């Protein structure tokens, strides 16, 4: 086994080499932060929540299983923390449109760019309207390197079930988007 693999490092942490968790922290902090940020759209909160994930991993390191997959375990912890936070605040925070980065390909037309920007902002307002479960599955599906198989392991369901969840989330998103467009 590669001694620097996630699994190996976490087994070492479990065995008492607690400092090895620092490697996993550096490896995954950005991804976990990104996960929370795209759900809550709050940088300070997302940093807190990401930190909580790793503190919880440290605290409950004995529970890491011999046959575990670190990334899946980490995201399950992240989901639980996210769920607790959502229950606490009761609603997604409304997105601050000024924080939104525009990724526009140069179309050569100012008007096209304005229309596209407006549509993107509308799309993200629609995302804000989704319930936590639908939004979460879309965030997971767009996280770098995340495949349906991995999402299935994190959500503890089959790969087929993940595809259905993504389908339902996109369908709901489309409906909200259209209704916002028609307002």
């Amino acid at each position, binding site marked *: *086994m*590669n*001694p*620097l693999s996630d699994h*190996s490092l976490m*087994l070492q942490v479990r*065995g*008492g*080499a*607690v*400092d090895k*968790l*620092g*490697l996993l*922290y*550096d*490896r995954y*902090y*950005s991804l976990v*932060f*990104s996960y929370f*940020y*795209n759900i809550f759209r709050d*940088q300070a909160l*997302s*940093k807190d929540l*990401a*930190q909580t994930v*790793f*503190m919880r991993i*440290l605290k409950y390191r004995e529970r890491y299983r011999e046959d575990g997959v670190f990334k899946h375990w980490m995201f399950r912890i992240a989901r639980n923390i996210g769920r607790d936070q959502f229950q606490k605040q009761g609603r997604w925070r409304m997105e601050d449109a000024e*924080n939104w*980065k525009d*990724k526009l390909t140069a179309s050569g037309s100012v008007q096209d760019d304005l229309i596209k920007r407006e*549509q*993107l902002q509308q*799309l993200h307002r629609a*995302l804000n309207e989704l319930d936590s479960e639908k939004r979460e599955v*879309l*965030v997971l*599906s*767009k*996280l770098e390197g995340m495949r349906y198989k991995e999402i299935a392991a994190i959500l503890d369901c*089959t790969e*087929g*079930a993940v*595809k*259905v969840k*993504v*389908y*339902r989330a*996109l*369908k709901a*998103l*489309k409906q909200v*988007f259209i209704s916002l467009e028609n307002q």
Partner: protein
Amino acid sequence: MQDINIQKLLDQYRRGPLTADQEVLLEQALEQGLIQLEQLEDLQKLQEQIQFEAPEVDNREERAAFWEALQAEQKHAAPTKQGLMERIFQFFSPVQITYSLALLVFGLALGLWLRPATGDNQQIGQLSAEVQQMKEMMMLTMLDKPSSSERLKAVSMSQDINEASEAVVNALFRTLNQDKNVNVRLATIEALSNYADSPSTRQRLIKSIRFQDSPLVQMALAELMVRMQERGSIDALEQLLGRDNVPEEVKTKIKSSIDILL
């Protein structure tokens, strides 16, 4: 579900709204892999337009706090004493070990039985050399891949190469000094430690200390210098102590490394 129904279902989806029963069928088809999400072009396009991203995050404070927590926990936690067998079983399951031992015994027996006449030893040696060359080529190619996990695999592969050529060692040093991924650089330090018998490798490792900005890599190199008992690294390590951007915990580690080497 017959193919023709799937196609009809897709056509109906594209034409207009599905009935409730058709929705159920569509979801079943998705779950069973008979329809892929990519075939639902409108949703696929929507998914492509979703842009999730995160701003650059400055987590230096949080990171420092986490490392402090780790150090505090390390002091309280007594490492569990693992016997040799426990350490082996940490990495390999009993089934894997049994299977590997059985294969080894079988391989030895087969090798003894099939032991070739001396004339064939040369051919086997040649074949071995060719296999080594192929491994090196694969490793060098993978080191240039954009994916950090591919580069990590490449570094791991170098540990399977019995006597690395100059090209491999040069590639590893290039990776140590230039790869943008910290984990790849850490793995490279481990890989290069296998060649630490060579004086030129040791010198280059010492030189590498000056190139490193990552605290993890700095600490790993300091640890390696101690393992190698390389007193020639003291100057380079002391230079690190003089840098403002080196975190305190790294400086502490470096100081203790220097104390051991002196």
